């Protein structure tokens, strides 16, 4: 017994000593990967341009602008004498992030509530699940105008309608994964709760929900990025100009003249998605403290 105790202690000490090193290693890896991607892009561009290869597509400054030009575009004015690109893009990013966050939260709550409902009723699970799945086969582009115009007629602001579209994409992975997670506990654990004469409510909060958390966080990570994509796509048919979706449509039209603007916008979109994903990953770290093999 004492040897096991020493082992546990030993592991803890080991963690403390090397806490800095993994962080540094993580940073080094990040820089290395960025550098490698940069090199691959520029190397590809250089090789195709210098050899004149056109397969699979023609490479020039329009199809593949230099990375430094893309980054430089952030400081260029959008219109003559106007503010640098970064400013309207940051505004748009905030606007879209707001939609995505609201949609993500709404979708997560709805998805989880649905899962809780379905896990308690086989009848509901059989009856509702096909429709939940079917909801995801309808393209969001087809749903978006209906939602935006329908809600607009009720006087609901456009960004809120887009948030609902983002929720439409978010709730599904949450519902499916949470349902799986809520059922994931050992059958003996359910027997144990039954032996304590626990109510369904207590089984839910003491057993089902904690057991579902690894599944739930996996779903939330998927949903985090999906909600940003949902928000961006939702803006387009809603004709909302203030977000990243609007910026993409706008810069699409000027692509042949200013390709770097669209690329710069893409980078901002990716950063927003990564940011939301990062928030979920951070929350997961804070909430889940359990067996390493159980961390999804």
């Amino acid at each position, binding site marked *: 017994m004492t040897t096991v*105790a020493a082992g546990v202690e030993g592991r803890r000490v080991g963690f403390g000593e090397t806490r800095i090193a993994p962080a540094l290693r993580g940073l080094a890896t990040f820089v290395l990967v960025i550098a490698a991607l940069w090199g691959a892009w520029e190397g590809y561009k250089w090789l195709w341009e210098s050899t004149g290869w056109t397969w699979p597509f023609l490479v020039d400054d329009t199809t593949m602008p230099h990375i430094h030009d893309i980054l430089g575009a952030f400081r260029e004015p959008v219109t003559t004498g106007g503010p640098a690109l970064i400013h309207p893009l940051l505004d748009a990013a905030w606007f879209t992030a707001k939609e995505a966050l609201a949609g993500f939260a709404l979708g997560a709550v709805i998805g989880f509530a649905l899962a809780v409902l379905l896990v308690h009723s086989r009848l509901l699970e059989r009856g509702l699940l096909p429709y939940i799945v079917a909801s995801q086969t309808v393209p969001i582009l087809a749903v978006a105008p209906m939602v935006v115009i329908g809600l607009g007629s009720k006087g609901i602001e456009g960004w809120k309608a887009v948030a609902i579209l983002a929720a439409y994409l978010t709730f599904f992975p949450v519902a499916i994964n949470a349902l799986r997670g809520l059922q994931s506990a050992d059958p*003996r654990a359910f*027997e144990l709760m039954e032996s*304590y*004469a626990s109510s369904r409510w*207590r089984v839910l909060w003491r057993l089902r929900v904690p057991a579902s*958390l690894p599944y739930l966080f996996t779903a939330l990570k998927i949903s985090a990025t999906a909600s940003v994509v949902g928000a961006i796509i939702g803006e387009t048919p809603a004709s909302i100009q203030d977000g990243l979706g609007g910026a993409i449509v706008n810069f699409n039209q000027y692509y042949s003249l200013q390709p770097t603007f669209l690329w710069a916008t893409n980078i901002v979109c990716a950063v927003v998605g990564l940011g939301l994903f990062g928030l979920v990953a951070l929350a997961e770290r804070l909430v889940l*403290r*359990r*067996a390493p093999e159980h961390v999804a």
Partner: protein
Amino acid sequence: MTAPTDTSVVSMTGLTKSFRTGVTALQDIDLDIRPGEFVSLIGPSGCGKSTLLRVIGDLIQPTSGRVLVNGKSAHQARLDHDYGIVFQDAVLYDWRTVARNVSLPLELLRWDRARRKRRVQEMLELVELTGFESSRPWQLSGGMQQRVSIARALSFDPALLLMDEPFGALDEMTRERLNMQLLRIWDASRSTVVFVTHSIPEAVFLSTRVVVMSPRPGRIAEVIAVDLPQPRGAATREETRFFELVTAVREALAAGGGHDSGRTAATTTEERY
């Protein structure tokens, strides 16, 4: 209510359990378990010993027959938290620390925090795991996890402890050590134990009575009183009487094991005290 049931912790009469598949898991089980007894259920797999344990715990409903626990229906006994249960796996919640696992039933019973904390300390002391309060289950060995599970089962002072092959997944050395600890815990807690096992020496070493079951349909083949003196220790396993009893259980198993021997399967020598 008949006379013996008044003082029995468990009283079963004419108990039968058939599953919808047509399998008769238990047939005509009559068994009385007195306070303070340590009764082992032993038999080949499929003899219904785990089913019998679950019927006592009201986790499975019998098809017919009567089960009384502490003189009331098994259902009422479960609602009253009259028993604790230990499974083959420890079934600890890995999102809870060791201490919080032990206090789980106490939380459900709405004990206040101070009382819970005190009891968890006592229980961890009982199973010799003091100092592991804030460890996570997965940091412990299998034997230690099972001891946490025992501490959890006994934390709310149930009159009855149901154990379903609790040491079945452990190695022989750990199992023997835990057997000794279990006897000490049984002695300290003065609870009644129903213990499912498929190990003959384990059943003989631990029990005051060994209930030998036979399969298809599951029934009681023989009940053997274990008259080894208490307290038992490592020396018990070397006594002649220990080997005699091990042989007796083995023969009862062979006789009831579905082989066509001259003996009738249900020669129940019900021991009354």
